[in-house]
């Protein structure tokens, strides 16, 4: 029996960069529920701001672990323009939100303020975060709890990304 089709999700820089920093972008392709897309805008941001991670992103796109998408319908452009006028989000975030809104996609991001703002302004857009993605990977037996906790430790120790729990076991 064929595996159920996975729903598309657009992943923003704040979540994407976490997986790139620990060189685990391939895990995103093994998510049981979502197929992750990177907008050309987010790709541009990673190019500009994260030199090492950019090469990893390019590799993930080449191998098909991630797919690139361009946000380019007139309705999406209009939503993008309106979002930039709010001056609350980064430009890359605006592109990702516009895509999620018009395509009924999920958006993955880890910026607490951005998540709260999206929930306030666009409550219909479902959101995922790095912890929720990792939990889904554990539940799908893609990674073990011990692996997940080692990621957590590496993020906290080396990448200034601190999760508010001691082990993923607490949120499983």
């Amino acid at each position, binding site marked *: 029996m064929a595996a159920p089709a996975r729903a598309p999700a657009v992943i*923003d*820089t*704040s979540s994407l960069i976490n997986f790139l920093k620990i060189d685990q972008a391939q895990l995103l392709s093994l998510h049981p529920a979502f197929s992750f897309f990177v*907008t*050309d*805008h987010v790709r*541009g*941001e990673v190019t*500009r*701001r994260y030199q090492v991670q950019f090469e990893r992103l390019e590799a993930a796109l080449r191998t098909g672990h991630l797919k690139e998408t*361009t*946000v*380019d*319908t*007139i*309705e*999406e*452009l*209009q939503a*993008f*323009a*309106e979002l*930039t*006028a709010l*001056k*609350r*989000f*980064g*430009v*890359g*975030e*605006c*592109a990702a939100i*516009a895509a999620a809104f018009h395509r009924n996609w999920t958006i993955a991001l880890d*910026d*607490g*303020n*951005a998540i*709260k*703002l999206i929930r306030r302004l666009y409550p219909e857009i479902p959101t995922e975060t790095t912890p929720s993605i990792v939990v889904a990977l554990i539940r799908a037996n893609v990674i073990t709890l011990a692996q997940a906790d080692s990621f957590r430790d590496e993020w906290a120790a080396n990448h*200034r990304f601190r999760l508010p729990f001691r082990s993923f076991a607490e949120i499983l």
Partner: protein
Amino acid sequence: MAISPETLGRRLREARVARGITQEAAGEAIGVPRTSIVHFEAGNRVLSTLQLAKLAEFYKHPIADFFSETDTAENAEEQVLVALRVDPQFQNDPQLQEEVSRCVNLCEEAVALEKLIGWTDQDTPPRYNLSEPRSRAEAAAQGAQIANDERRRLGLADAPIHVLADLISNQGIWVSGAELPNEMSGLFLHHPSIGMAILVNRKHPRPRKRFSFAHEYGHAVMDQNRSAIVSTSQNARDFGETRANAFAATFLMPDVGVRSFLASLDKGSTVRQMQVIYNNAGRQGTEAQTRAESGSQKLTYQVVASLSRYFGVSYQAAVYRLQDLGWINQTERQALLEHEVLGNDYLRLLQITDAIDDGQITDNAAGPRQDQELMERIVYLAIEAFRREEISSERLLDLADKLNVDGPMLVELAEAARQ
């Protein structure tokens, strides 16, 4: 309702043409062939968010304005530039236009942050309604009068103003240094979407910059009906400029303050002084005349240098102010101006080099950055907006790019402010 691709295409073309950019150059700037620009502008093909953002940046045109419901979107940057184009020098200087655009854009960012955190009732300077001066003398009198009123309103008494840029900024006016042509000392800008902004030539020595700040502040309180004023050496004798110069001189060096300072140096009293002492017992006055030592009251270059240092103005500005207040006559003014080099050497000897305006243009490489005040203000507002959960950390990173400050550090500081 979404606009049509044809409308978007037309607006893209208009924005490009308004900047005098060719389709070739536009394509090059965003990494597509010229034919793609042709298709975008004809509405045959819709561009991506990334291409749109890049074009908007290249055309200095807000992204949202391409999608506004009407064709007459409010664009502060463009409107200010249009107002400035009446100045021929401005019209022919693309670098200057670029610099003004950059500063106006930063002001817009600051205003947006203020709105997000609910700072909508900022102080603004009063507006003095003055008649158009009919002579240079009347212009000078108006400027001096308003400067005294402003000093009183601000509670400055007769003391020197030490941090002038902060004082002006606290009046709700954006202030910034800017890369301006040497003969241009400053600009005053006024637009509903940014309020008032003052840009001064960052390369001018500190005393001259202070005078420019005061001069442009004079425009802010006396010429609020104008949307843009350029202050250059060419228009210095216009009545409006004379008025702003008189404002600056009085604002920086108030009459009583100058008198007190001169008195502290044992200068400024008349050579003969008659004292009348009341005799309570005899119920009458007794006259006594004192006579200062010959030459003791002469105002020399070192008095002028000390005065310029005390009030933070140039040697020349101090000399003219002394004549304006009647302490010296025209001949003495000329003699003192000829001694400017001595005055500057005197300050060098005292190692007070930042008080010297010897006409040299500096690049201030080691000093604070040109837009220090504006940058500080925006960073403060951005951290505050983030702390109040009004903007995301990616927005902080975008702002950091515009301000050319360390983005991750800004995010870290903003996160710390929330704890």
